[in-house]
């Protein structure tokens, strides 16, 4: 069996294990073992991948395997990875790992929580290893639906409303997507739903013009494309910590990855023709999210809007349709995934101690919980693009890439997108100043302790990853960049 399938199998086995486990200790043991295994797998995959490439293997997808599943519709179970999927798998594994630790202390229904959590992971990992449109879509939906219960049962605030809104909007997106996928398959006349195969056959240009928006918007809903992003603030605000992490950290990346893997890769002509519409939308997203974040008072809302802005940048960069910008987009996905997960983890931990997320009610937390405070500052600095942390690498690559277009339209939007780095600084520093700094006021907060070991594990792993990418970006950037080549060539044909 192909070892990529382990990425799906491990979470499934985890689910079985969870189902059988009897007490909290066993549940935790299963979760930690599984998550560590996944992380080890992902790291191993990175080395294996780089090794193969170094050994001169130049095929587009490595470790590919293919089994016919539904022969009548030419649906195959086919897996394979290129540098981009490897990067995304690594991201997912890190976030699943840290998510387990971040949800160490659940208050009720632990088993069910982890069951859904594993199902979500299954979907996420499956999505990234899939090469077949059908399985890709299937995993995509598998990843979406557990959100409903995870938010609805374990969430807080207006959880039912948020969960419902999130699920319905994302499902509406996936409805468009399904039509798009079917259209692509039937109109391309390909003999299988395999991505590479369809890319080779090509979709007729006339059909691309209506399929492209369908697919792009379909994935874009999950990628928080303006104006379909409104599920995100409410959803994140209501979700429990680990779910916010996984959702903002990985699930939203499914959107970006899909946009680029399906919409751009398979429909290059339409991408060239219609990119301008979406550049306007994403350009708006970037600035709009940032401005909205400035006035929010709920920590999670701030971060959610910040995600709108950052994910907008991802889609924006993808639409620039050149290697550098796309490379930046993938890096931004990684970077945003890690730092937003860190943010949500920290917010969850702070909330667990202060029982409020309203920044007006918190002050001087740095004194009370220095570890969390420092981590929050690091996350903030990463988010506003400090060199040495991952955000900088991604943003700079995007801007350089976006600037390759010479016409006024692209230039203007690139510069508009650039301004987000200032606005980001404004809202990040505002929050940091309000909640961490100043004298510690609330007695209830003063009694709260600093991070526990499992919380430390979770944050430290994330910070290490952020700093790792930020300090030594070359290997991952080159890995992604090489894999982008076939896609870019497809666009420029």
């Amino acid at each position, binding site marked *: 069996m192909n070892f990529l399938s382990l990425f799906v199998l491990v979470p499934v086995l985890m689910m079985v294990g969870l189902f059988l486990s009897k007490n909290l200790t066993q549940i935790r043991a299963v979760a930690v073992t599984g998550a560590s295994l996944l992380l080890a797998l992902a790291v191993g995959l990175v080395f294996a991948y780089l090794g193969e490439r170094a050994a001169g293997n130049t095929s587009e997808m490595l470790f590919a395997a293919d089994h016919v599943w539904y022969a009548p519709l030419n649906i195959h179970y086919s897996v394979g990875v290129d540098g981009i999927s490897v990067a995304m798998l690594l991201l997912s594994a890190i976030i699943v790992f840290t998510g387990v630790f971040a949800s160490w202390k659940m208050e009720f229904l632990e088993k069910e929580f982890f069951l859904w959590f594993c199902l979500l992971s299954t979907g996420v990992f499956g999505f990234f290893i899939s090469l077949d449109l059908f399985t890709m879509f299937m995993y995509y939906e598998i990843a979406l639906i557990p959100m409903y219960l995870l938010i609805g049962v374990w969430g807080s605030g207006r959880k039912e409303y948020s969960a419902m*809104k999130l699920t*319905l*909007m994302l499902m509406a997106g996936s409805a468009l997507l399904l039509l798009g996928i079917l259209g692509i398959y039937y109109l391309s006349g390909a003999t299988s739903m395999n991505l590479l195969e369809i890319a080779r056959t090509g979709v007729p240009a006339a059909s691309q013009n209506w399929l492209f928006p369908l697919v792009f918007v379909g994935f874009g809903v999950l990628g928080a494309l*303006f*104006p*379909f*992003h*409104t*599920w995100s*603030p*409410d959803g994140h605000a209501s979700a429990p910590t680990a779910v916010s992490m996984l959702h903002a950290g990985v699930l939203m990346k499914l959107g970006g990855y899909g946009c680029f893997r399906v919409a751009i890769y398979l429909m290059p002509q339409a991408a060239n023709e219609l990119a301008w519409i979406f550049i306007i939308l994403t350009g708006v997203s970037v600035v*709009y999210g940032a*401005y*909205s974040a*400035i*006035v*929010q008072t709920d920590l999670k809302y701030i971060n959610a809007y910040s995600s709108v802005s950052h994910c907008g940048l991802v889609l924006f960069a993808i639409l620039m349709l050149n*290697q*550098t910008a796309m490379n930046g987009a993938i890096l931004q996905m990684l970077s945003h995934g890690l730092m937003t997960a860190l943010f949500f983890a920290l917010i969850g931990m702070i909330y667990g101690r202060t029982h409020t997320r309203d920044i007006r009610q918190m002050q*001087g937390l*740095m*004194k009370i919980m220095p570890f969390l405070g420092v981590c929050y500052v690091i996350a903030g*600095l990463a988010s*506003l*693009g*400090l*060199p*040495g942390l991952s955000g*900088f*690498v991604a943003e*700079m*690559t995007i*801007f*350089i*890439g976006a*600037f*390759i277009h010479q016409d006024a339209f692209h230039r203007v939007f*690139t*510069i508009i997108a*650039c*301004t987000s*780095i*200032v606005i980001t*600084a*404004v809202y990040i*520093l*505002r929050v940091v*100043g309000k909640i*961490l*700094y*100043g*004298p*510690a006021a609330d007695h209830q907060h003063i009694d709260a302790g600093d991070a526990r070991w499992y919380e430390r594990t979770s944050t430290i792993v994330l910070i290490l990853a952020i700093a790792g990418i930020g300090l030594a*970006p*070359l290997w991952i*950037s*080159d890995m992604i*960049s090489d894999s982008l080549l076939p896609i870019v060539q497809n666009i420029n044909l």
Partner: protein
Amino acid sequence: MEYTLFIVLLPFLSFLFLGLVGKRLTPRAAGYIGTVVLAISTCLSYITAWHYFTTAKVDGVFEKLTPLNFTWLNFTEKLHIDLGILLDPIAVMMLVVITTVSLMVHLYSVGYMHGERGFQRYYAFLSLFTFSMLGLVVATNIFQMYIFWELVGASSYLLIGFDYAHPEAVAASKKAFIVTRFADLGFLVGILILSFYTGTFDFERLTSGDASLFAGMEGLSFMGCSVVSWALALIFMGGAGKSAMFPLHVWLPDAMEGPTPVSALIHAATMVVAGVYLVARLFPVYYLQAPDVLVLVAIVGAVTSLYAAIVACVQTDIKRVLAFSTISQIGFMMVGLGVSGMEGREGLGYMASMFHLFTHAMFKALLFLGAGAIIHAVHSNEMEHMGGLRKYLPITHITFLVACLAIAGIPPFSGFFSKDEILAATFHFNPALGAVMSLTAGLTAFYMFRLYYRIFWNKASHRDHAPREAPGSMTVPLTFLAAATLVAGFIPFGKFVTSDSAEYIIHLDWTVAAASVAVALIAIGIATLFYRRESPIPDRLASSLRGLHAAASRRFYLDDLYLFVTKKIIFNGISKPVAWFDRHVVDGAMNGFATLSQRVSYSIRGFQSGQVQQYVMVILLGVLLIAVLALFI
């Protein structure tokens, strides 16, 4: 000269060490570790300087050496960020300046910050800052510079907000970061434009004078200016932000909320001259490709300089006075660069500017450290709480006086030599501008001595206990810097640092020198008259020029304007409506779909009436409708 790597790397290691395990160390140990590491770094940079200036000269020109350079990140085939070390005269000079001042500040802080909470953290941040600043000056390419530029900004943010329980400090750090960040946006866009057309970030290629690099930009213009001018102007905007040039200077006075040694290090000697350094670094590009931007640099420098000098005259917080004085002096440096030419004697302004940067670093650090010693003694920043301190703080007094004389431009103190060269170059460029700068120099002398007299002379304010002189760890740096201020002027600077890297023999322009000394003396005289003893003249003057005085005290309302723009326009005018729009219009539309379906669902409930006859009726009508549609359409 690979060992130069360690100059940069050691502070970083010290940062990591102190940052990660600092809490486990005693404060004293942390302070010593930081200081010792920096001392090693300083020694290394001295060795580097000696090594470089003795060996790197080929055919009378200092070569650019790149002992280290590796690719850090690839963008496109041509564009990639390298990290490396570039040694040329200005870089080496900056290494010396930064490590020296930083070492002094490290040493000084052992005494000054004694007993502060977060002492270890403080040293970690100092190390981080030093690392960033060193990385900035040895940058081999513009993007490396930008990277360290940002790091410098962040570490400055951390240091200003060091006392985070103090709301003013937090606000000031935020302001500093955001204003400079805004300027950096310009820098970034400038880099984007420049690199896109030239296809390189590399300083060596950019400054090689190779016109073919810029061929792609030729003939392109935007809003009446050529694209290359735009690019360089935007890059200058970044420099202006860091160097607190008008109108982006607003953050610097507020940044005085940080610990005083930090002000000495960051906001006097090192970080704030980064902008000057940036322009100097790209000077050939400015000069050859966009001379018009150089004029802009000169004008901005002059305006800043004059403006800051005027404002400095009415400040009452001693650190604020020093802050405005810094702004003003950096203005001088900018003017020096702006009026400079490239070759030979034309390059006077450049040389002078760098010279001034060097001397200013010493005496301004001295001033700040002295101010720190004073504040340490009286626990206040306000002039009215001081007065008559000369008896209590003899060492501080003498060293402070030396610095004041230097900044006022009195020979033989170092400031005289460097400032005089700038004035000479300015007069050579444009007499009117020269006059303005001379006036500014006079104002400088006036406000510095106003400061001096009100601290050390004048009437002593009421005190509970007598102020005591600072401990040795603080006075040693003061003495060292005073000595440096005394001798620095006699360094044959033109031998080392010039615009074309060839030797330049300094000739004092005696007319300019005499005039400026005269102006300075007159200004000092007025200050003596006004402030040596308590005198009614200043108040009377202030009331007769009430409008001007009030405006100057409020810094000509610039801060209010910024506040208006940020609070009223951005916060209330943009963000709030945007957030409202998002919740009510965009989200409202999404919710609207849901409500609409619900409404429709309720409005059609009557159709399911429960009457079987109606059901049959509907079936029949359905059949008829289908029949009509199928047969007639």
